[in-house]
């Protein structure tokens, strides 16, 4: 799967489920975040050809806060994950949860 379609899948996922309009106020709660991450993993695994590619990309995003895709995802969701520290830690937890679920699957 090429990077472009992987990126598009992630952007679609974040727009549909993590937009500021849609995400619940308690999303940073551990259990809530875990459920969200599990659901995301289940959806994403259906649209990506190789889940390993996705895992790798997510790890890159966690490692590099200023990655352009982090900015794009912040644009999609109207949540400045890449700027505000609190949001960044929540976002990182979510991405880690997705990775964990994908790896366990």
């Amino acid at each position: 799967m090429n990077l472009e379609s992987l990126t598009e899948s992630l952007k679609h996922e974040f727009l549909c489920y993590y937009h500021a309009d849609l995400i619940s106020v308690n999303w940073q709660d551990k259990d809530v975040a875990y459920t969200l991450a599990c659901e995301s993993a289940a959806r994403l695994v259906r649209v990506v050809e190789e889940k390993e590619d996705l895992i790798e990309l997510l790890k890159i995003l966690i490692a590099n806060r200023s990655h352009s895709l982090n900015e794009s995802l912040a644009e999609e969701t109207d949540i400045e994950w890449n700027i505000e520290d609190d949001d960044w830690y929540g976002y990182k937890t979510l991405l880690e949860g997705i990775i964990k679920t994908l790896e366990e699957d």
Partner: protein
Amino acid sequence: MTEGSTVTDCWGELFYITPGLGLELGFDGPQGFPLPFHNELSVAMFLGTLSSFDLSLLSQRFSPRALHAHKDIQRAIIRGRLLVFPMDMPTALVSAVQNNDRPNQSASAQSKNKAFNTRNINTYSPANNDLECVNRTQEVIRSDIRNVLQQIVEQERIESRKIEKAYKNKSTLGKTGALLQYYRKGLHQATESFLTWVKDVNDVVSINQRLLRMHMAVQAVSHIETDNRYELYQKLLNAAEKKELVEALGFDPSLVTTGKVTEVYSLAKLIHDDHATRQIIKHFIQNYIDAQHQLEWSEIAGGATFETILTAFFAVVTGGIGAIASLGAQAKKLSQLKKLGELLSELAELLKKVPKARKRTMREQKEREDKKERKKAPKAEQKPEQNPPPEKRDKDEETENTNDDTIQEESVDQNKKTSSQLTQEKISKADQPLEPINPNKAMHGHGNAEHGSQTTQIQQERRIVTGVKPSGELGNPTSKASKFLTPEAEIEALDKGRAKLEQEIKDQNIPTIINGEPNRHAVMVESNKREGFGERWIRAKDSSGKNLKNENGSFIPQKDPVKLNKAKLIYEYVPSKNKWETVTYFPVE
């Protein structure tokens, strides 16, 4: 009409109308309190139950200008010149009323009421066309539904007033004002409330809706997969889920079979899909909340419409057994609920017979109206039989009923919907209930509520600063907050979004449910208009891109000059409707 002797039927009660003596509301007259009308709508609703005969008699006294009879009578009631007293039924009428809960329930029952039911004097003659007969009957039933609901609200208001009056008597003993709330609350708790049960049901209905969704999901899967897991799943559904549901509702499980649940659901859905009835029930819930002054209801106000319908149906199907268990001493509420259920069943039967109209786009509707207008101009010289049947009927009525001009004008106006009314109507349907399994997800669409053109700059700015949404709900502080410029722009986005969604569903084979959870899909559309779809506010930033904050540490909102000529629409699949509804939608650049 002899003064002080007119009796008419309204909200299932008999009323005594008398030209007022300037008595203030609350005066303990021989007939008890005059009926309190809290706003113009309730007066208009009351007047709507009077026959044209009664209205013309009242207009002779209260309306010097015959053309504005309705408004003049309305004003007379509001100013206390004309008082409406609820009264005990005259002995001669008691037997007739006892034999007839609602005047429209059957033809024979109607004839019993003939002496006092003002509707029977009405000169309206139903058209020969079957569909028109159906429409007429629907109107009557809806009006009765409105009346039953209004009755519930009025009772609640009267109870509230009694409570306050009783408290006032106690206040002489030195009670503080702050205690009123507790006093009122205590009494309300003691008497229970109609919505208490609905709210309880509302909580359970989420389980209930889950049942339906799972049921539908399983049924859908059964066409594709036929493994044992499905059978096991279905067994579990029928045994455990249904038991949980009916037990939580308070019904005897043996009384509610799967067939009954299915029947109740299909009827409730049929009614819920009927826009006019849904609006009536929505207004009822709002009025009920207003009457009670109980803020906690506001959280279910928007979402309880389906539950109210469902509850009424369950009350009928189970003979009210569940309701008795839950309502306790409030037997009166139960009878109203059952009455409502019966009326809804009656309406559902009629709705089943109505052929589904072909949906027209706004453009088609506009073209149709324009065509009608063009035809109207030279119509006078054309053959009269070219007129469509409803207009012919109006004309006939006009000749028969010459002193009822106002009513005639109103009905013609109602038939001629402007495109702005259609736009409003369409927008009012934009935010629909959703059926997620995950309780942390939105249970209702909110694109219009949070981004509609009715939202204000202050509301959008507040979203950026505090996270509080225009609807008042607490959300996450957002980096951008946008709104549509006009209702038309919103409709353009909705129409284009729907078309694009349908195309993508067709092309991309998008699943409706993933891992038991209704799926979502987003589309982006572009506006044809020069000004674009909307406008937005963003967080003010410094030169390094960091957010600026005020002395309280809050973000500072500022208007974004960028043109928003696109819109994003996020849809979610709704299993019970087998349809995708918007979760949210907003303008973007």
